[in-house]
């Protein structure tokens, strides 16, 4: 993983005698939240709203989904209260952290008409600093991918940069994987390796859980110094390894990334795309939940008097019909072409643009697709068709001839 910290101008070297890891008891976890708030951070963390585990303002440890687990499959997401008392025993829900780093609606410019001409100023600079509490490794990698888009030459997004620089990250290592997870295939988890200020692993010892906290940066060490941690023993470290190993061993899906880019590029006309097009609703859910989708649109508006104008940036999706509109019509009219654009961009073009694939294996697109489309299955179908000859796509309802 690229050293995103460098891009975000975040200091990572810790002082030579600084703490590198510690153990926090369950009853002291709230002290961590308090320390972050005392430092001026607005803490965002997982909690339950409308039947899903989402990311929102976290003021107390009691808001965390204690004992809840999630059950995910193609086009299906359910949460239920289990019998345990773990605080992080689920994976990822419909939210990712991108809404805080790159808000869905962002005013960029406020302008005023003058007698002659107009004047405008940059707007929308963040007025709060976030601490993300409970960032899974896949999402850490997604943030790194966002850094590659917004913090590199020739144009750096100033709004993103400020939010990114001022954001404190408390990662959490996954103890199990959903059936839709495939971070291991994308080399983006389940273990958080870098890119965080602090990283937690929930150790399920008996009734009360303990938290191994690893320090990843100077400011992480500074926060750590204010909470009552205990020394982490070798046994604790090994237990943490077991927790993550459990997640690794139970990955729900896999994506073979060998030659993936070239394979998708040369299969532009593969019948698989037609088969998907019959199922895809172009609802754009996948792009909304995907933590690395970054497309936006720019809207210029004016008030009724016409004397004040604003420029807003809004999340957009390549699935919309007018995404590719250019004088007189859109380039990608069919659903097929729009799905193909999304998947080929994510798994192939991204590599050419930013160095690595744009997918972190979080599985959200599979879970939240109302048609249950699974990009790992589709990629596999293409790969297999190349080994065994043309693939038969029998899901077509009106197909009368073999491809």
């Amino acid at each position, binding site marked *: 993983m690229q050293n995103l910290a460098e891009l975000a*101008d*975040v*200091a990572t070297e810790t002082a030579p005698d600084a703490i590198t890891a510690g153990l926090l008891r369950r009853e002291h976890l709230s002290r961590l939240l308090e320390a972050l708030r005392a*430092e001026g951070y607005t803490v965002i963390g997982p909690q339950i709203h409308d039947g899903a585990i989402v990311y929102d303002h976290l003021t107390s440890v009691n808001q965390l989904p204690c004992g809840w687990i999630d059950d995910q499959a193609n086009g299906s997401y359910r949460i239920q209260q289990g019998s345990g008392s773990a605080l992080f025993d689920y994976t990822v829900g419909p939210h990712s952290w991108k809404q805080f780093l790159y808000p869905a609606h962002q005013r*960029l*410019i406020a*302008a005023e*008409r003058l007698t*002659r*001409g*107009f*004047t*405008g*100023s*940059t707007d929308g*600079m*963040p007025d709060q*600093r976030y601490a993300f509490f409970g960032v899974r490794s896949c999402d850490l990698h997604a943030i790194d991918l966002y850094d590659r*888009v*917004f913090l590199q030459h*020739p*144009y750096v*997004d*100033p709004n993103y940069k*400020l939010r990114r*620089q*001022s954001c404190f990250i408390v990662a959490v290592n996954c103890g199990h994987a959903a059936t839709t997870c495939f971070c291991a295939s994308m080399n983006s988890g389940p273990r958080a390796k870098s890119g965080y200020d602090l990283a937690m692993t929930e150790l399920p010892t008996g009734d009360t859980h303990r938290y191994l906290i690893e320090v990843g940066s100077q*400011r992480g060490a500074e926060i750590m110094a204010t909470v009552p941690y205990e020394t982490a023993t070798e046994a604790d470290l090994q237990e943490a390894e077991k927790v993550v190993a459990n997640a690794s061993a139970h990955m729900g899906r896999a994506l073979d990334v060998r030659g993936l880019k070239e394979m998708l590029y040369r299969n*532009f006309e593969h019948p698989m795309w037609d088969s998907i097009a019959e199922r895809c609703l172009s609802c754009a859910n996948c792009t909304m939940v995907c933590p690395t989708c*970054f*497309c*936006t*649109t*720019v*809207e*210029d*508006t*004016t008030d009724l008097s*016409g004397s004040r*104008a604003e*420029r807003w*940036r809004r999340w*957009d999706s*390549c699935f919309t019909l007018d*995404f*590719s*509109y*250019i*004088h007189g019509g859109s*380039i990608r*009219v*069919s659903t*097929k*072409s729009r799905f193909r*654009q999304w998947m080929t*961009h994510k798994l*192939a*073009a991204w590599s*050419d*643009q930013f160095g690595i694939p744009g997918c972190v294996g979080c599985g959200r697109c599979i879970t939240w697709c109302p048609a249950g489309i699974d990009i790992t299955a589709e990629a596999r179908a293409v790969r297999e068709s190349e080994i065994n000859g043309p693939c038969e796509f029998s899901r077509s309802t009106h197909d009368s001839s073999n491809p």
Partner: protein
Amino acid sequence: MATATELPAVSPVTDPMLPVAYRIQRVKQETEDTFTLELVPAVGKGGAAFAPGQFNMLYVFGVGEVPISISSDPAKAPAIHHTTRVVGVVTKAMRLLKRGDTIGIRGPFGTHWPVEEAAGKDVIIVAGGIGLAPLRPALYRLMANREKYHKIVLLYGTRSPEDILYRQELEHWRGQFDLEIQVTVDRAASSWRGNVGVVTTMIPRAPFDASNTVAMICGPEVMMRFTAMGLQKRGVPDERIYLSMERNMKCGIGLCGHCQYGPLFTCKDGPVLRFDRIAGVLNRAEY
């Protein structure tokens, strides 16, 4: 690194999403649906110099923004011209502006025509319709340094005689400079004295040395594709042919994702693209 709560201010000059005000010196109607805006910076010396082939994002206050290639002589910057057709809400609003009105400019963005690389070679320029506008800055550059190039040929095709852009200028260039200019139209009444036929039909006869030439093409995608094929037939290598691609743009700086052409961002990897990079995908539908 600052952990303090105050955040550094962003200078408006460095914000690439903030338009700079330019004043309209003149609005010139070129053809029935095409017009040119002649602009100068509203305050001070104004924007950066531009290279032929680059574009600006033009902002009409409160209405919106469109990407338009710069169509004037780079040597005359910061004064700039933009030639455009009325095709939508923003260009329609732009057409209603008058001398003295203000327009917002962001740019210049994008890649440019290979004017330097063409030194010592023949240059064949093929323009279709309004595609002549983004090529005009290159022509000015070539003519300003005429001695650096061998033969310069301009093939220009458009729909009908009424749609010929920069007519007077073409005549002027024909007369003043060592420049071969051939104009053709797709359809004409018999009163038209000149070529009738698509611009590609002029390629087989055009007087340039295919083994030592740089080609610059701009126009509708179909026209550019067939022109590139015609040049290939003449023996011009793919690496010496350049096209100017066009896609939907919102930000112009490679961040909104709209202008992607495969892995290429038209706004920053283009709009001028070398043909060998895109030859395999140019004829792909819905790419």
